[in-house]
């Protein structure tokens, strides 16, 4: 009897040990490169009706150091349709002993802020736990009930870089076949996943996923992370029902439920825009006038209430207050275009510097974060972003370029790719004449022309204050010590989308004296010192999203009393990533012509190529820093 009792005791000790979250039981491979380890990451979703979904989420995270705190957030969002039924957190020390229990009443109820909206109706419950030691483990669980089934929580088997996962579980159950979800799996080949499907339930489980480390130029985290995207073909959202098999259906739903009837305008406004385009026949010319009118008369203000996250405020209201968010301004512009007889389509896009495509075979509401307008013309589309007061007509820059988007036509939705700006189109042409004075100072006149996304990066200078522009150039040419900007002027050619900067600058002691040698750096104006960081063992492929071209020609005037001893040879390197060419031509004893051409090409490259790319950039950094030796002649 006594023996048995001891046995039980050992068993129970063992049992409680595996139940709790001692830091010591984490496998070594999960500690590598990890700031935190998700001991258990679990969601259980129940679709009870087209307009009723409940889910329970539980996250148990062992935080190893301060950077890992971000993975142990205790917060849950809610809104009018979404209620938080339960919420709780428990904190354990390194050995897995409970040290604090956080109840619902301890959570703060606050308004959500996105940093740019005037008003949002989303709220959240949150608690800020203060770690008293590392490592610690935080268990956070909550239950949600909502009538919105239009956006289902996606499942990330890894929640970010620098976190590993011991166990990840996803389960979704549904009460009838009509409510069966469609699940798209991404990047699951990289991990070991057990999938189980039975009547009314689908579940996934993965164990021991090591942490990923962020690498420069890698595809975005969402593109490489193992995840599940989930949608219901029959759903309910903020009071609206929908049946969606494909993008055509979803587009039609947006058209009929959210957009139709919202392009009405006051007669006075219609007359006004018609007046503006009087005598103009061409649709694109009319659209340009309308776009300019919209840019001059409105501004971007975001207000998001209920379905307003998807539905634009009516054109008549935007016309009255002269502001709106991306949806409201797009819809308003479409109304103005309609008034002058130009056809246009509402377009939903995932905007941002990183290109993200809409998934062609997976139509759901969670994709897209921005709205723009497509104008069909002679078999192609012109794209306009109505939230900008300054962009040229038809130019969308690197915010929405070259990606698959949803255009909403009266007959339904379509997936189309927006205008791309790649390689040679992203040109920066720099021409300069610079003179080295006898006192070794530099005086230069520089002309910079930019096109494509280079235009997008430069044309904003025009609106800046004089002192900010001065500061900008001092940073742009931060490599020139003692630089002062004498003058500058700009020309913004919106029709051809070319921005021209003319700058006059000076720098004293530009040529450095080293014994009897005077060193002159040939190219200080457009010098590419960027070298991608080195990785001992690169894990991911790399992406050059757009590519670009630099074309430079500098005429260098030397003072009469100096002579150069030799000139570098012409150099050219062609790689799959691009081409680099540099040449210095002697024009006379005191005049040199420096020519440089540098092309980087858009592309996706396997990780094995990374070191080659790096060495290409190293060569360029080195060649761009070439110097010549000058000798004084009058001594």
């Amino acid at each position, binding site marked *: 009897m006594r023996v048995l009792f001891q046995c039980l005791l050992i068993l129970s000790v063992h049992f409680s040990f595996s139940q709790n979250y001692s830091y010591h039981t984490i496998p070594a491979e999960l500690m590598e490169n990890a700031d935190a380890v998700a001991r258990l990451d679990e969601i259980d979703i129940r679709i009870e009706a087209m307009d009723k979904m409940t889910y329970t989420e539980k996250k148990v995270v062992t935080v190893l*150091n301060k950077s890992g705190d971000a993975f142990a957030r205790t917060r849950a969002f809610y809104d009018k349709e979404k209620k938080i039924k339960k919420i709780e957190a428990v904190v354990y020390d390194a050995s897995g002993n409970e040290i604090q229990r956080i109840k619902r009443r301890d959570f703060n109820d606050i308004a959500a802020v996105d940093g740019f909206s005037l*008003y949002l109706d989303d709220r959240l419950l949150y608690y800020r736990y203060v770690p008293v030691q590392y490592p610690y483990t935080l268990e956070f669980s909550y239950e949600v009930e909502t009538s919105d089934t239009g956006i289902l929580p996606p499942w990330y088997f890894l929640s970010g870089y620098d976190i590993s996962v011991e166990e990840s579980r996803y389960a979704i159950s549904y009460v009838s076949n009509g409510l069966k979800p469609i699940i798209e799996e991404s990047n699951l080949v990289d991990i070991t996943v057990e999938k189980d499907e039975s009547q009314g339930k689908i579940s996934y489980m993965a164990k021991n996923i090591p942490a990923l480390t962020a690498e420069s130029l890698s595809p975005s985290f969402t593109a490489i992370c193992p995840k599940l995207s989930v949608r219901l073909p029959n759903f309910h959202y903020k009071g609206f029902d929908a049946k969606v098999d494909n993008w055509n259906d979803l587009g039609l739903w947006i058209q009929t439920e959210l957009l139709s009837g919202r392009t009405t305008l006051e007669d006075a406004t219609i007359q006004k825009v018609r007046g503006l385009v009087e005598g103009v026949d061409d649709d694109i010319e009319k659209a340009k006038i309308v776009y300019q009118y919209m840019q001059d008369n409105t501004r971007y203000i975001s207000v998001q209430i209920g379905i307003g996250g998807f539905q634009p405020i009516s054109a008549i209201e935007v016309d009255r207050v002269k502001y709106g968010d991306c949806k409201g301004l797009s819809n308003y512009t479409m109304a103005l275009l309609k008034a002058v007889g130009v056809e246009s389509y509402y377009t939903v896009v995932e905007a941002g510097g990183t290109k993200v495509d809409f998934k062609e075979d997976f139509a759901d509401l969670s994709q897209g974060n921005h709205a723009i307008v497509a104008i069909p013309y002679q078999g192609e589309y012109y794209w306009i972003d109505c939230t900008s007061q300054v962009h040229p007509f038809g130019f969308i820059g690197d915010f929405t370029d070259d990606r698959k988007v949803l255009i909403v036509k009266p007959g339904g939705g379509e997936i189309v790719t927006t205008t791309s700006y790649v390689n040679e189109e992203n040109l920066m042409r720099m021409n300069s004449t610079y003179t080295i004075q006898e006192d070794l100072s530099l005086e230069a006149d520089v002309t910079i022309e930019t096109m494509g996304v280079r235009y997008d990066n430069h044309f904003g200078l025009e609106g800046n204050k004089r002192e900010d522009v001065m500061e900008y150039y001092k940073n742009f040419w931060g490599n020139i010590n003692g630089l002062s900007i004498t003058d500058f002027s700009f020309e913004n050619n919106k029709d051809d989308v070319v921005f021209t900067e003319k700058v006059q600058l000076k720098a004293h002691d530009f040529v450095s004296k080293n014994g009897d040698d005077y060193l002159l750096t040939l190219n200080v104006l457009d010098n590419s010192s960027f070298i991608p960081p080195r990785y001992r063992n690169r894990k991911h492929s790399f992406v050059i999203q757009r590519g670009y071209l630099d074309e430079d020609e500098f005429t260098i005037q030397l003072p009469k009393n100096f002579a150069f001893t030799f000139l570098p040879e012409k150099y050219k390197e062609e790689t799959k990533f691009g081409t680099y060419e540099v040449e210095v031509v002697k024009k006379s004893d005191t005049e040199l012509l420096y020519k440089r051409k540098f092309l980087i090409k858009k592309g996706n490259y396997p990780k094995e190529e990374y070191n080659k790319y790096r060495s290409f950039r190293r060569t360029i950094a080195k060649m761009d820093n070439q110097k010549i030796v000058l000798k004084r002649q009058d001594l």
Partner: protein
Amino acid sequence: MIRKIALLIALVSVCVQGQELKFGKISKEELMEATHPKDTSAAAAYLLKKRESYYTYNSAVGLNLVTEVHERIKIYNADGFDYATKTIDLYESGASDEKATSIKGYTYTLEGGKVVETKLDKGSIFKSQQSKNRNQVKFTMPNVKAGSVVEYQYRITSPFVQNIDEFVFQHSIPIKKLEAEMRILEYFKFNQRQKGFLPLVPKVDKIRDAGLGMEVTKVTYGLQDVPALKDEKFVPNITNFRSGVTFEIMSLEIPGSTYDVYSKTWDDVARTVYENSSFGDEMKRSNYFEEELNMVLQGASEPQEKAKRILAFVKEKVKWNSFVGYTSDEGTRKAYKEGTGNSADINLMLVSMLNHANIPAYPVLVSTRDNGIPLFPTLQGYNYVVAVGKIDGEYHLFDATNVFTTMDVLPTRTLNWFGRIISENGNSEEIDLMPRKSSMDAIIMTVDLNDDGSVDAKCRQQYTNHNALLFRNLYNGGTEETFLGNLEKELGDIEISDYDLQNNLDLDKPVVQNFNFFKEDAFESISGKLYLSPMFHLAVSENPFKSEEREYPIDYGFPWQDRYMITINIPEGYKVEHLPEPVAMALPDNLGQFKYNISSNQDFINVRVELSMNTAVFPPNYYLGLKEFYRQVVEKESEKVVLSRI
């Protein structure tokens, strides 16, 4: 006599009327103005910024503080659109809350020579509860275009009669006309304190308030053409320099009631704080820690050693929850038990422990860098507390909110001009919070030049005081891999190996890192000669000061000294053809120094460089000197050593 007075009044009122900008009365000139006449770069300007605060009394609700605001803003261009949106923050506590009412607004725009007015719609005014104690009212004006004038007014009614928001007289856009009025009951003794660089002369009158039926003091400010406040680098908190006036109620003298002193002089501030039970009383408690502390102090006899152990003990026992305050949140006892607390819980505990160990110790009121400089004696002037202990007749500062602080090495947030030591019975004195001890960054480096232009080097780097504190915070914030990855990037794409860190947790000693590194393309070879920058990546390559002039002090936080000793081994077959000239220079009043020494023999080149700033803060009149000083540093450090073949 009577005639004379009448004339005077008439004159003044004419003058006032002639200038008064009435709500809704917009002139075409205001709409047509294309740029601000005195500041053409301004994206918008206040044409009028008017605020009146006064008290009302009503037997049902009692005393209220009412603030009426009227603002008229000219929007010159699209960058000024942000000024068409207004946010009003309101406080709520229990059943009492501040309310914003009578919100009224119009936008005026010139269209085809005609003035078009657009009314702010009630439905476009959003009220939201931000958190338990904070509400917000927000609106944006309709029909705003470049050239528009927006105008709005509103009233805030507050039951928190002692809390009078600062009258802000300067913004990031210019103000053409500013009117401010504060009317305070005769029962309230108040302080009014000014800050900023504008000359502010108030007009003070005693008048009878018809609504209250009693005497009030009326303080008015009228300003014309207030310039915009411009942000600059190395200014930790620009609002320190923003002009404004604060009113603080010092005491309430209602006949027959008790007399409460709130604040008046620094001593009064100190006494008020001291008498607050979550301050003074918290320091008197000691029974909760006595037993454990006595264990910790066993065997320690020197005060310095005791203080060190106490600091370590508090840091281990209680972690900072990142809330600031000079009064205890939940009490030191609870903080001790639960292991977390705000700055007061932690540092008041520290004070009482030091006293318990017979080290005379006091709390020091501090205004953190975010909170601005405490220019005048008010309770709001301070928001943080640290501890001071008298050891061998000298004051030393302590702060246990950060794990890596040591005696007199406090977190950057506390390095903000002067603090105030509060001793028993509320006496007080000023203490300089700016560190005197220099923080060192010392590097010893040996470099080998390889044939292909790369270098292999050994580096030993040592940090003291604040540099050590900053380093330890950084290093211990994440994994060593991340730290090294960042270090490699920061040092200009080097490859680090054999990394070793000493004294990471031994706070008495400087923290020391040793590593080897490899760097590609570290020097140049041009027609048989080698050109190298003898400081490699340690050279200052860019002047941090770019503006032509500066209005505000340059604040480094603490004095510092960088000392580099570099040995470069000369590759076989080469000799030194040229070395840069040694140089030494100093800033006026010896506030900064730069020494550059270089020498060589057959086998190696020796470089010794010292760059130091001997003060934490430079007044703005040193700016141009500092900029030129740095230009010369950059120039010197970019000079090259030339090696040629033997």
